[in-house]
């Protein structure tokens, strides 16, 4: 695979570190720091259908651009967010991380690297624990020598199931 000039010096290890740190920000509930990982044209997508080709014109659990991500975080900080009173605690496990050949889509802004991984998130709220399991893809761009997210796509194995309320990004 051709390595774009911008990604020189950024190898598998740096990508692995990046997706692990990204998950950790979610577990630490540092949501504004998490938001800052995305490029200005970045997006967070959790399809509601298996093998969904596009978020445009099909239902998704999440399809947030930066503005909507910001709205979502502001809501999570609101004192009257009933679905997070009390808040959840989460723990992510990220593994099987691989660098993939670039895949482009007409609606997807340009990216330099594509990283695939498996993720599990256990969420505990009140006395209940539930488990989310997914394959995820990070389309990454190098901005001023640092990795930023152009698109984070999370394909839950049960994406088309009937869920109780989901308040936190996976």
């Amino acid at each position, binding site marked *: 695979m051709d390595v774009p000039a911008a990604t020189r010096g950024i190898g598998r290890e740096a990508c692995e570190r990046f997706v692990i740190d990204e998950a950790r920000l979610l577990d630490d509930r540092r949501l504004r720091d998490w938001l800052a990982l995305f490029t200005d044209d970045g997006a967070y997508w959790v399809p509601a259908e298996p093998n969904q080709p596009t978020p445009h014109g099909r239902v998704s659990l999440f399809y947030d651009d930066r503005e909507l991500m910001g709205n979502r975080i502001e809501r999570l900080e609101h004192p009257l967010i009933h679905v997070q009173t009390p808040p959840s605690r989460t723990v992510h496990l990220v593994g099987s991380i691989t660098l993939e050949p670039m895949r482009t889509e007409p609606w997807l802004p340009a990216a330099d690297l594509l990283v695939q991984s498996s993720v599990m998130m256990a969420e505990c709220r009140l006395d209940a624990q539930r488990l989310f399991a997914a394959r995820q893809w990070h389309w990454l761009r190098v901005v001023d020598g640092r990795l930023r997210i152009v698109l984070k796509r999370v394909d839950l194995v049960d994406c*088309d199931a009937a869920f109780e309320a989901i308040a936190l990004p996976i």
Partner: protein
Amino acid sequence: MPDGSTDTRSLAALVQPGRVHRRVYTDPEIFELEMARLFGRSWLYVGHASQVPSPGDFITTELGRQPVILIRHQDGTIRVLLNRCTHRGVKLLAERSGNRPRLVCLYHGWTYDTDGALARVPIDEGCAPGFRTCDFNLATAARTGTYRGFVFASLAPEGGGLPTFDEWIAPMRRNIDDIVDRAPAGEIALDVGVHRYRFRGNWKMQVENVIDSYHVPFSHASTVNRKGVQFSRREGDAEGAKVVDGQRTAASWKRRRGHDVGHGHGWTSNTELDEGSRSSPAWNEYRQALDAAVGRERAEQILTPRMHNSMLYPNASFMGLNMHIRVIRPLAVDLTEVNVYPIRLVGAPEAINVRNTRLLNVTHAAASFVQSDDIEAFARQQAGLASRQGDWVDISRGLDADEPGDEPGTRCAPSTGELLVRAQFRAWLDLMREA
């Protein structure tokens, strides 16, 4: 006093002026009766023609406890068949949707046509003397009715004081038209996928919630940013709706009316808060398409919709503000699944439909900003009702303060009251009586 009994008189004692007994939400026996009587008798929403566009296309769902198949027959008509092989009772189709030229039971290969007629039994020389395939066709819904592509069914035959389809749908036709007429082609499609969520609460909580304007400013307070504006909602809107702050908003919620139109059906009206002027290239293109299809004056009427939300009692809501059809599926006395189908306006620019679908992600997905707080409210209502602290649930807001509605025989009142909830319980009691 209400005890554990379920005869008509005991049930009637659970529904009193301005209050209902907690058992209607918590008693598993009452839930079983609801499945047998209310869902066994009432007209129920099944699906839309656009979900089964070609012969052999099907979706599977349940009418109360009965698994059914909505399928397009080879002759183009739509049928509602019971999803149960007439041989040994095996559920024929497991998928939620698909296409079959014929329905073949996985167990012994009994094969049905798409109208439910038993076409073939393997090794037929082994059949009992006098066995006739025509005695083993799939059961069908006793009655079906359609309006503008929406398919409804009742598992009970005509008679017994039950309304005909025309009687049942008549008061809600205009509300269905309100949405469907927005499509330049005069038809809608439910083909962009479905949001599925579930909650640990009784099904009636969702049925009450869709026509409840009282909860909105408080339950959904967190959807409003520090400037008092909700996230931008629709194509062409300059900014989101203001749902909480400001005198104009408070007055607007008070002006919203709830309409009790019979059979448990109800709808809430729009206010100028929902409309405002909309403009964008896609919106203007849509406006032109609608003008061309129906004329400028009619387009103006259509785009000043009268409806905010509506409930076709007992299992479907049609929402006009963020356009979708919602189907309520009771699973247990304290567990409910809800399916939300965003509406695609046929003949509208793609951008309009893409935007509506995207809006529904934010408003009604399991991970949405709005619905997630309702799911929490329902679960906490169910938890609270488990307590024996008080046996009665108050639904008295606006009691005896309603006025005659627009149409003869209808009533209306501010939709921050509970007129429509009381109307639902009147219908509930009527459908729950002993045969």
